[in-house]
């Protein structure tokens, strides 16, 4: 009996090797190496201008790379572009629907292009409009839809035939928080149906909530890649935040907890301290630290009103890696365009 070893290449949705794209003197993509496994959400995180969109456009066969190579689902994006196009869908950074056409007409047009008969196209468009809660606006021009609805239509258009790989280029940029979480739910559903998603985002919370694995990209290069946990561990240690009932006890609390292993900081809030074990890499470290700290405080009769533990935020990871602040998540107000 022959035991088949699954081919590593066959398991990858995207594999790039030293991908380069230059515009004039700017190296927008400067040697990007990615290995994206099938069947998950892979997040490409980076500030504006990092090269995320250019990378996606190369992988979606819209741009030819100037150097390096890229394979999507086993096919070379330049030499086998037609084969790649049969397996992917693209939801571009600005909604990839025709603003002049109605929601329904957009879906009908794309269904027809994908080869459905007139009747099948109608049925498919109706199903998708219903599933995405867009039936009420089916006859509205896409330009008149809200940002969230247009994005939903965009996603619906991308799964007329469920693609093997879906590119989502900054899917929630400019959306209000409610539309964002609605969209995240849809993306999770698409992934559950077996589609691999390559997501670019400049929002850390989006990568944190959706992506199983993340590549951080800056100045056209991948500067870190791994699972969320790996990225966080690579930067900092587990930590806790404690809010005291009485701010006057803060300095005593700090002295009680701090020792040669544990570093304690005062937070800007006068009742809050944070504690870390810098050398600690283990996942359970935060829990041990919390038990220790709470025990010390309770023993000394210092009241605690609130308390939180966890790994460093992706924010801190991002800051440590790129030396710059990531974009803040949109608030309701900013999202109104």
């Amino acid at each position: 009996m022959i035991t088949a070893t699954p081919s590593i290449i066959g398991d990858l949705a995207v594999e790039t090797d030293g991908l380069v794209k230059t515009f004039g003197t700017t190296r927008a993509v400067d040697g990007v190496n990615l290995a994206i496994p099938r069947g998950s959400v892979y997040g490409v995180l980076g500030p504006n201008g990092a090269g995320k969109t250019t990378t996606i456009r190369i992988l979606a066969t819209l741009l030819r790379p100037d150097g390096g190579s890229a394979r999507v689902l086993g096919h070379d994006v330049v030499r086998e572009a037609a084969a790649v196009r049969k397996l992917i869908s693209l939801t571009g950074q600005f909604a990839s629907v025709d603003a002049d056409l109605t929601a329904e007409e957009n879906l009908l047009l794309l269904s027809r292009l994908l080869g459905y008969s007139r009747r099948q196209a109608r049925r498919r468009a109706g199903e998708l409009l219903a599933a995405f809660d867009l039936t009420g606006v089916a006859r509205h021009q896409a330009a008149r839809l809200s940002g969230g609805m247009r994005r939903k239509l965009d996603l619906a258009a991308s799964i007329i035939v469920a693609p093997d790989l879906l590119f989502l280029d900054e899917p929630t940029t400019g959306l209000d928080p409610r539309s964002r979480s609605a969209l995240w739910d849809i993306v999770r559903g698409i992934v559950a149906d077996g589609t691999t998603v390559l997501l670019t985002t400049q929002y850390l919370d989006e990568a944190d909530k959706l992506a199983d694995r993340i590549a951080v990209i800056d100045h056209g290069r991948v500067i870190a890649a791994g699972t969320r946990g790996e990225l966080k561990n690579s930067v900092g240690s587990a930590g806790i935040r404690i809010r005291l009932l009485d701010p006057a006890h803060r300095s005593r609390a700090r002295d009680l907890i701090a020792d040669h292993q544990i570093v304690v900081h005062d937070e800007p809030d006068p009742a809050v301290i944070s504690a870390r074990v810098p050398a600690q890499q283990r996942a359970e470290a935060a829990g041990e630290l919390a038990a220790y700290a709470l025990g010390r405080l309770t023993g000394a009769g210092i009241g605690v009103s609130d308390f939180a533990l966890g790994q460093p935020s992706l924010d801190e990871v991002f800051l440590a890696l790129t030396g710059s602040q990531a974009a803040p998540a949109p608030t309701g107000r900013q999202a109104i365009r």
Partner: protein
Amino acid sequence: MTAISWHERPAPAGPAAASLAFAWRSLLKIKHVPEQLGDVIGIPVLFTLLFTYLFGGALAGSTHGYLQFLLPGTLTLAVVFVTVYSGVTLNADLATGAFDRFRSMPVWRPAPILGALIGDIGRYLLAGGLVIGLGLAMGYRPAGGAAGVLAALALVLLFASALSWAWITLGLVLRSPNAVMSIGFVILFPVTFMSNIFVDPATMPGWLHGVSDVNPVSHLVTATRALMSGTHATPQVLWTAAAAALLVAVFAPLAALLYQRK
């Protein structure tokens, strides 16, 4: 979500079906944004009224007499001017996310451009029909009858769709729709005015007469006049068809190449 996923993939639309789908898209755009017909309606109406009443008295002694001479020329002029918008619209369309999606789909590559051109021919038909309808209302009487007028219109549409490839090429090269329009008009003004549309070239200085004689627009206008007045037009029709074929032979492959590289 499972219910909404269709994993079976039909065979994508073939070249003809895909082009027709894009032609349908053009028609839908006209339906939803009828303002975009402003040029297609404005240019023929303005040209027909303006040039007839402005030049008629001076050039031919009467507007009625001039109209008999001018109308086939106005038909050509108006439709040829409207062709520039093929490039303008394509240029604007290329910048949209919708076009990115089309280009990442398993669809015959030239289909979006060809489909748009089919839609544009509908616009040319509208522009031409307006000139003819308005001319008839103003007193133009074609001796060639309905058959002659329709043959002339068909010839103008043939040349216009061939010329569209030049603007499509320009639309693929230039960075903004405005640039396509400016350059298109800068080319079209001399090309159309240095012809026999408005006056008999015999009245022009020798060099201009020479330019007018080789200008394909002059051949088209002569053929149109002949067809509409029911006289012999075969050589001029052939000249025009040859010019159209040359335009397509040069610009269609160029456009295809540029589009492929985009």
